[in-house]
């Protein structure tokens, strides 16, 4: 059962299909608070049943965008279309969206049951139906035994589940989640990430989540919008964001990366020849072919860098000599900090696939780092 869901998940890519219509359309939205521009001429499309993440550092405008979707803030200019309806001027209580708050915002004077039933009662749903729906929600979040408790009698994880149950009880078209796992400890957070994904699949809802935790966004989202200073820098699947960042900012923001600044010196077949400022010769596959003399940066992830005791066959291209400067053993993998001849420190990581290594690499050892032509991404800025 889960397997088939997984395969649906993998083949889900409405954004790649020009015929599919976006469910939420954010068009040139700007939001100003006094002099401060929180969201700056931002446009985005989100599709039905998508798990969409807004990722960025605090103050990048992601929460403001979410609050505009919920109706707590009005855009200064631009418009938001949801399922063909322009949301301008529609107050929060008439929008077919529900929000799960970062603080959970559970009503302290009500039991778990009444918290979940709150929105249903407000809509005037008949009592037997409310009872049925609440029971269903409690089962979904595995809190049947806690129906009569008050929020202050629950643990953080339980409260988070109540907040979730309350926000999906009305079957909204879109569920907005504001840092939903921020208050949980690491282990619980990881478990809950997968539960949220399963839940989203099961209910067939569109989720828009705001997070500053890139791992969380990468794990859960179908697509991620990386935001900075009120603008979207890149919108893409987690794999694209990681493997093909479109800018220095994205490459640096998501995961670890080594950046080599240099100059384009020519084109060789499908690859660019670049010489770094410290004289390392690089040959990188690149769809774009800037003219010789143009500035370029190459971003290479640590796990794509190999370490060897001898110079590789393709020397002197895509390789550099250095010494092991630091070793960080993380259990599943080891991170090496390699100091190159010019003093630049490069991160390289290797998977610890076997338990004991004969003659492991040690501090101060002279080694060569090397990487393939498709290991890095050429960035223009």
């Amino acid at each position: 059962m889960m397997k088939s869901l997984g395969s649906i998940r993998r083949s889900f890519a409405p954004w790649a299909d020009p015929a599919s219509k976006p469910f939420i359309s954010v068009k040139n939205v700007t939001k100003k608070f006094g002099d401060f521009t929180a969201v700056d001429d931002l446009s985005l499309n989100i599709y039905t049943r998508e798990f969409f993440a807004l990722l960025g550092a605090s103050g990048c405008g992601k929460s403001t965008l979410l609050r505009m979707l919920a109706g707590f803030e009005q855009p200064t200019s631009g418009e938001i279309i949801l399922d063909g309806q322009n949301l301008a001027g529609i107050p929060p209580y008439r929008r077919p969206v529900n929000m799960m708050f970062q603080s959970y915002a559970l009503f302290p004077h009500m039991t778990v049951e009444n918290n979940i039933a709150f929105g249903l009662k407000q809509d005037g749903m008949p009592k037997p139906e409310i009872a049925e729906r609440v029971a269903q929600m409690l089962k979904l979040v595995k809190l049947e035994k806690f129906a009569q408790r008050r929020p202050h009698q629950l643990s953080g994880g339980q409260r988070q589940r109540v907040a979730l149950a309350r926000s999906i009880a009305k079957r909204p078209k879109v569920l907005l989640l504001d840092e939903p796992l921020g208050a949980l400890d690491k282990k619980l957070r990881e478990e809950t990430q997968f539960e949220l994904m399963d839940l989203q699949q099961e209910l067939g809802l569109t989720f828009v989540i705001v997070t500053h935790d890139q791992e969380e966004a990468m794990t859960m989202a179908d697509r991620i919008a990386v935001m900075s200073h009120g603008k979207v820098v890149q919108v893409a699947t987690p794999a694209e964001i990681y493997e093909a960042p479109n800018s220095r900012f994205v490459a640096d923001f998501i995961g670890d990366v080594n950046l080599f600044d240099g100059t384009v010196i020519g084109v060789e077949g499908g690859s660019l020849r670049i010489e770094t400022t410290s004289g390392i010769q690089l040959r990188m596959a690149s769809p774009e072919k800037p003219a010789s003399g143009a500035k370029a940066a190459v971003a290479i992830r640590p796990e794509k860098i190999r370490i060897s005791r001898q110079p590789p066959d393709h020397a002197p291209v895509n390789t550099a000599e250095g010494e092991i400067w630091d070793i960080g053993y993380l259990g599943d993998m080891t991170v090496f900090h390699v100091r190159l001849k010019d003093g630049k420190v490069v991160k390289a990581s290797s998977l610890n696939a076997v338990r004991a290594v004969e003659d492991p690499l040690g501090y101060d050892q002279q080694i060569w780092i090397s990487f393939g032509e498709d290991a890095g991404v050429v960035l223009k800025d």
Partner: protein
Amino acid sequence: MAKLASALVSRLVIIVPYAWLLFFFLIPFFIVFRISLSQTAVAMPPYTPVFDLAGGLAGILEKAREFSVDNYVWLTDDALYFNAYVSSLVIAAISTLLTLLIGFPIAYGMAKAPRSIRPTLLMLVILPFWTSFLIRVYAWIAILKPEGLLNQFLTTIGIIDQPLIILNTNSAIYIGIVYSYLPFMVLPIYSALEKMDNSLIEAAQDLGCTPTSAFWRVTFPLSLPGVVAGCLLVFIPAVGEFVIPDLLGGSETLMIGKTLWSEFNANRDWPVSSAVAIILLMILVIPIVYFQNVQAKADSEGK
């Protein structure tokens, strides 16, 4: 040694409030209670029996036989006292309700005001306390009397041509009580509203509440502890209020505080006025203790 000292200090800290209650509530209460069981006498002090240690234990026991509940029986015989109690409770209840109706919006406005001006607003609420209570009540006489400021103002702008008779009526008492006790209503409600998380209101609106229904389903229930505290703080002193009915009320106004005062000073009947005071205390304390018990039970059932 240091441990012993800190244990002693912590004991001492607990003792302080109990000692306070003992000396300033329980002992005076028993003195009043004892007088209420005595008989009035033309003497100093003006009641009997007066205990004298010279008679020894036997003498004290002999005199204690003179105690009786006659004063309480007498209170039930005369409708004046019953009417005064009822009228005090009614006036206090109406005043409390009026104070709530005026105080809640003030507290709500203060809690919604920008954080930077809240201390100023709070100070404005407390400011009247810096002037003597008596002077402020006297000031109301100057405002409310037929040729007073209010009537002059209203006749000048042409709303009325005959002065309104407010002074020496129950209306003047309501005005006086509401004015004097407003801060006691505003402050607890403000403190309940102020610590409320604004995201609760947003959550209610997100789940379909209009601002009005969000107020009645979330804001108001959460402010109830403050409302209850404020009402008790106004109602209890208002029942026994003496100065305001004496200065602003008319001759037909019947309040138990005034009755007690004339019994004590004009009649010099200490035993009866003590009985009046004890019954007033019972009327106030018993319902409050009962109410708190019920609430504590409800709270523990919720757990």
